């Protein structure tokens, strides 16, 4: 990167760090921060949509749909989320391949599960073994996003379901008294009022989501944890590819600081949003703001 990096004498000087920190591998490490932010940017709205669907389903008058919604909300209770992460990545992958297998190879007679193997016809493989590397990475990342969305959708459904129940009952009754249908009451009365009650829970969820991003590593995506482990460590104890010893502790210290800054910034931003949204609301927070002026 810098011209002085070609001079071997810099090895013993502090300038060496400038050379080290701009190597190609380190660039991949920096880029993986983008992967994390991309995951957050996609997962947050998708999980919110999943949560909204789950909460609406739980409120449905059609009993089986309501059970389905309640089951989805109850899913995250009692079982560690990491179990779902590990489960869904394989289950979704196999589910997709199974569906494609049924559609693309209808005359394939061998069973799919043979002992400890899961065999589908070559045309049903996802992504196809002939497709370039980038598609494999994109597929892996999308599976991770979908997994995150399902798990955090269940959390969001829990929050939104609680928020829907927190809307004063009198509001719904008034709407019914005006002759609104169930659907109209839901969209025009319940949903607009729900958000204030949901916001504390949702901002909590955002913090939890931020702190769950390192789990991407477990889903096989080359994220910051992967690169920190790779770059910091020596390949073997004695013969190392890198001109330094075990620096993983420093790399992870960096990650720790990154997450601390990130959660602190989110906290400040969410505080501002909360202040803005409670302004003029008939809640204790809104009343306190009114008196403070």
């Amino acid at each position, binding site marked *: 990167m810098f011209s002085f990096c070609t001079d071997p004498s810099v090895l013993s000087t502090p300038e060496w760090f400038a050379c080290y920190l701009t190597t190609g591998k380190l660039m991949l490490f920096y880029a993986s921060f983008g992967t994390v932010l991309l995951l957050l940017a996609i997962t947050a709205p998708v999980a919110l949509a999943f949560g909204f669907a789950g909460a609406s389903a739980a409120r449905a008058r059609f009993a089986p749909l309501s059970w389905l919604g309640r089951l989805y909300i109850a899913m995250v209770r009692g079982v560690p989320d990491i179990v779902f992460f590990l*489960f869904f990545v394989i289950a979704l992958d196999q589910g997709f391949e199974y569906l494609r297998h049924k559609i693309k190879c209808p005359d394939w007679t061998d069973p799919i599960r043979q002992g*400890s193997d899961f065999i589908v016809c070559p045309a049903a493989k996802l992504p196809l073994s002939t497709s370039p590397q980038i598609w494999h990475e994109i597929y892996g990342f999308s599976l991770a996003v979908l997994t995150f969305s399902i798990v955090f959708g269940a959390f969001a459904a829990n929050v939104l379901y609680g928020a829907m129940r927190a809307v004063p009952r009198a509001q719904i009754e008034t709407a019914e008294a005006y002759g609104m249908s169930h659907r109209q009451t839901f969209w025009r009365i319940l949903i607009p009022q729900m958000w204030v009650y949901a916001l504390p829970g949702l901002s909590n969820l955002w913090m939890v989501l931020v702190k769950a991003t390192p789990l991407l590593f477990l889903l096989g995506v080359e994220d910051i*944890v992967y690169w920190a482990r790779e770059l910091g460590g020596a390949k073997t104890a004695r013969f190392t590819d890198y001109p330094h010893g075990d620096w993983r502790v420093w790399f992870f*210290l960096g990650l720790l600081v990154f997450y601390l800054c990130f959660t602190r910034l989110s906290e400040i931003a969410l505080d501002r949003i909360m202040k803005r949204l409670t302004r003029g609301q008939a809640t204790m927070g809104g009343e306190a703001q009114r008196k403070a002026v």
Partner: protein
Amino acid sequence: MSCWDVVADYGLRSLGIGERLLPRDDFTICKQVVLIGSGMIWNVYFGALALVSGFFLATALAVGKASHNRLARKASEWFIFVFRGSPLFIQFFFAYFLFLSLKSVSPMFGAFSSAWLGALVVLFLNTAAYSGEIFYGALLSVPKGDVEAADAYGFSGWPRFRRIIWPTMLRLAWPAYTNEAIFLFHATTLVYFSGFPALQQRGDALYYANYFADKTFNPFVAYPILAGYFIVLTLLIIWLFGAINTRLNRHLPSERRARVRYRPNLMR
């Protein structure tokens, strides 16, 4: 081979007692249930010890954060911020590599780089920070009248804290603390998926569940078994903490008692 033989062989496998080799073929349901259950020993070990030891540090942190002493307050605030603001997963990695580097400085830290002690220390500090924040919130909402009444009776200093403030703080914090305990037990599954190695394949429940899912390429058996174990564990925690909650609230009329509600907002 009957299921009882499997229990004899693999029941304490996670502690290194019994059969050394993990099953390589013929993954029966019985083997999976027994081995995953054997791994639960570690989850209960990490969770229970971290919870009990973390409880005391959490009380100290809550008092520290509420104190007028600037040094104690800042120290507690920073401790809580660092452990609540960063992912537990990264904390595990960082601690493992830190202990590994310290090990080369002094052999005293050798034990810390293995999971049974190193991960326990991280979980202890982590749960202390989360519970400390809960206790701090409860400490601030101890009714003023209770403290004034204690003053009027001539209580002060340590006896006032021990007999009046602390029990009320615990009573107010207990529902949230129950959630914290549940999520602490869930968090113990991260231990063997972060830096800490499972020596001789002595892992926790998730470690074995993952082993079976990888070997059979079938996630639909091992993970539901693990989920079943955790649901039972969660119900046990709720029962135990509910009993303590009843005891803490025994002097109150029944309608004023705080109920334990499940709120999934204390995840790491």
